């Protein structure tokens, strides 16, 4: 039976040959490569399942966190955003919201760590820069705060960039005003004014900021722009009145303040300012539209008021003791007493230069007593403002 033996031998030979081929490196490498590909495909499939689950869980916790953040439940929001980050540690949105929630809990140090990490990833992100600026401002790191505020102003913002940038600049101006950096605030305000839209609310707010920065000219301009669109806006009217008042344009101030008070009768500061403005208009002897007799009458009244002010101030000083209130220069009393006999209607008519001399003394008395004795009567306040108005003339 030779045939089966041959078959067996040949089968064994083929088997041996096959094994020897298998042992050879090229075949081994091909097999390894195939195995690696199969393993890789299997892990890729597994990875898709894993990633889908991670994404699902991350989103679920993020949604819960966002809802809690909106409702102001910062503690829960922090826990939920942390859970979301377990599934997507580098998610920008998750980190940003977690940091926002931490800010809500006033855990600024932790929030700062997240924000600074986010800043490293996207230095041009407006919100991150703004939050970093706020944290720096709270830490009184002015340079850092200004740097981040400026970054935020020129950064990229989601949605309406113009609005976000303007609001950021407004916040920067408020910060500058808070730290009494008026010059820097004014510079920012000028930039802000250029970017303000034709919206009365914005213009009024711009005017308010100019007012706080003591830039009354620009403030008046902004209020006027606002009043063009909304002529009866009480805030703009009051602001315009105040600006004109501060600029010494009492006639204009009177107009605006009258409108402001009539639009909003509860506006007590405007009403008080209106009264002062009216008094200033009434007590200013250097107005062009008044007659000589009227002028002389005003000078007489002012001279008497100054004398009374001098007397009350000296009495107050004597009562409280010389150490507490510095008494007005005694020379002024003597000067006033010396001049008093000459300050009559006929005297003023005879010597028109006496008007100037008398008013100079009045202004001197008002300035001195105001610094020595503080707040005065309405008349004295008006005289002081008139003195300021004609300072240097």
């Amino acid at each position, binding site marked *: 039976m030779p045939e089966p033996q041959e078959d067996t031998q040949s089968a064994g030979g083929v088997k041996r040959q096959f094994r020897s081929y298998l042992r050879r490196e090229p075949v081994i490498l091909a097999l390894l490569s195939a195995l*690696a590909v199969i*393993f*890789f495909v299997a892990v890729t499939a597994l990875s898709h399942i894993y990633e889908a689950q991670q994404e699902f869980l991350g989103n679920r916790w993020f949604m819960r966190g966002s809802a809690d953040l909106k409702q102001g439940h910062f503690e829960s929001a922090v*826990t939920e955003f942390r859970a979301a980050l377990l599934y997507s*540690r580098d998610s920008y949105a998750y980190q940003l919201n977690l940091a926002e929630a931490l800010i809500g809990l006033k855990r600024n140090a*932790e929030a700062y760590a997240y924000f600074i990490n986010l800043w490293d990833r996207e230095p041009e992100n407006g919100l991150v820069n703004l939050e970093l600026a706020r944290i720096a401002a709270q830490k009184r790191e002015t340079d850092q705060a200004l740097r981040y505020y400026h970054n935020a102003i020129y950064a990229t913002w989601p949605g309406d960039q113009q609005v976000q940038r303007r609001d950021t600049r407004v916040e920067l101006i408020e910060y500058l005003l808070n730290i009494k950096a008026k010059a820097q605030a004014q510079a920012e305000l000028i930039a802000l004014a250029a970017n303000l839209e034709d919206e009365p609310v914005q213009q009024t707010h711009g005017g308010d900021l100019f007012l706080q920065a003591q830039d009354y000219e620009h403030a008046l301009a902004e209020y006027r722009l606002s009043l063009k669109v909304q002529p009866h806006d009480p805030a703009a009217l009051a602001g315009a009145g105040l600006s004109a008042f501060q600029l010494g344009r009492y006639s204009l101030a009177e107009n605006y303040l009258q409108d402001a008070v009539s639009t909003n009768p509860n506006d007590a500061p405007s009403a008080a300012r209106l009264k002062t403005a009216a008094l200033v208009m009434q007590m200013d002897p250097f107005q062009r539209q008044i007659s000589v007799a009227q002028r002389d009458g005003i000078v007489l009244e002012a001279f008497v008021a100054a004398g009374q002010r001098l007397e009350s101030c000296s009495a107050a000083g004597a009562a409280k003791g010389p150490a507490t209130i510095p008494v007005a220069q005694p020379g002024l009393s003597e000067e006033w007493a010396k001049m008093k006999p000459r300050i009559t209607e006929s005297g003023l008519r005879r010597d028109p230069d006496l008007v100037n001399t008398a008013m100079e003394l009045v202004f001197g008395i008002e300035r001195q007593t105001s610094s020595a004795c503080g707040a005065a009567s309405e008349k004295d306040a008006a005289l002081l403002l008139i003195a300021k108005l004609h300072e240097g003339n």
Partner: protein
Amino acid sequence: MDIPPNPSDATLLEERQPALGLPFLGRAPEAFMRLVFREDRFFLVLSVFIGIFAGLSVVCFRFAIAWCRIYLLGSGATLAPLRMVLAPSLAGLVIAVLVIHVFPLARGSGVNQTKAALYIYNGYIPLRTAAGKFITAALAIGSGHSLGPEDPSLQIGASLASALGRRMRLSRDRMRLIAPVGAAAGLAAAFNAPISAVLFVIEEVIGRWTAGILGSVVLSAVSSVVVMRWFLGSESMFRIPAVQLERPSELIAYSVLGVVGGLASVAFSSGVATLRPRCRALPRWTQYFQPAIAGLLIGIIAVLGAPQVMGAGYVYIDEAMHGQFTWQMLAILAGLKIIATLLSFVSGTPGGMFAPTLFIGAMLGAAVGGAEHVLFPHLSGSPGTYALVGMGVLFAGFLRAPMTSVFMVLEVSGNYSIILPVLIANTFAYLISRGLQPTAIFDVLTRQDGLELPSMEEQREEGTLRVEDAMRPASREVLDTVLGANDSLDQVLQAWDAKFPEVRLVRMDPTGWSSITRPALEIMVKEGKGNLTLGSALSGRQILFLHPDNPLETALRYVDRWPLLPVVSRADFRKLEGVISQEDVLRRYQLFGEEDTSE
């Protein structure tokens, strides 16, 4: 040193390689295949595949841990108290059954098992161990046991590599090496830090550098990290804070951290060394409950206010780096993590020590940094910097891998500015730990398991005998190359001393050294070649020469072939510093043995 080559692995491979069996192409393909697929080159290619398989396995391992965590502990950041207690306890019961009945080799961290494969089992690690480690460690870490995924990944990589090597029927030398190659791949993928993985395997497992070993280990580590990053991204494990060192005097603050870290390392390793044998000595039935009890206690710690101690804890390391805990809380967490890790590890729960070590280091570092900031507010280092340095400190002090600890921090932080604090603090921690606990933790564990593996640390510290320790001055052993045989024989006979061998060295200007014996000279004279100069007689018969700093074992390899060897200066090989013979070498070894015994 001029050393003749040993028989190469290539020769061995050629001997056992079958013929290609493609007669129509003649012998050319066979020669080509031999050239391309020499075993050392093939081993390098194989290392890449090992890296790929290890990387893919580690990715799956990470998925498994994440899934276990989600389904056992819940998906939220805040865990339910009942789950915190039940999950690690019940998982502990399942793990105990699996480890006792199905995967007995899955117990422990995995580093020693890989070393044992290298030194005892010729590279053999059963594939079943990888499966066991994968399942039990994923269950343990995912359920909240205080262990990490790095060491199991290392063992999974080693086990896969070993299985592959067996299928390839590699030579014994290659088989021994293949487990560490897989270990490096597994560790690199788990750590996302190829340099640290390569260094750790070379520093702690293999213990020596050669181009071949380094090439294989690097290739496997790099390919595994590439695979891991393909699936899991290339982000660092932590958000790295800004690192700054404004004044050199601040290094004192980091030295304090090194001292504290060194003491904490000693406490941690002493705990492991003391408690592990006691737990193992308990009756066998208790082993079914030890992981569960450990899990229960860890759960109680978590419920009482420190859930951070559960699992690997990378999220909390990240938080510590960014100042989200007070320094008091950080110190408490470091202490509780030591307790939790001791409980998990000594109960025989499979899992790694790397992550807990990093956790403890980070917490301790940030705590020390925070406390120092309270005392000295001008210090510029942030809590994150101290946490980073602290991780390296514990790595150096507890795992006793000083080089790896430095590179690990550099690699993780990606910031070179941290190098000085890390070097200073790690050195302090390492020296204190070594001083108070002479045996490294991995060696302690090995000896507790009844194995006697070489200790890499002891090897590093071991004194090496050199040629200069055994050589003696060359007073009369040198003959000049221009001398004839007659004169040379006269010179030899005049200075004859029975104490010395009958051999003389000949300085062969300008090519090197040779030697000749007295009988050889006598034969030359008898044969009438008395006027022949030694230079012409010995032409082409040069001998090896040694340098004083060569290891003595190198000399031992050659002294039986040449009875007397010249020891020459490295600056000028013609300048003789001394001579050495077999007798000198043996005498020195004998003396060394006596010194060793007396110590």
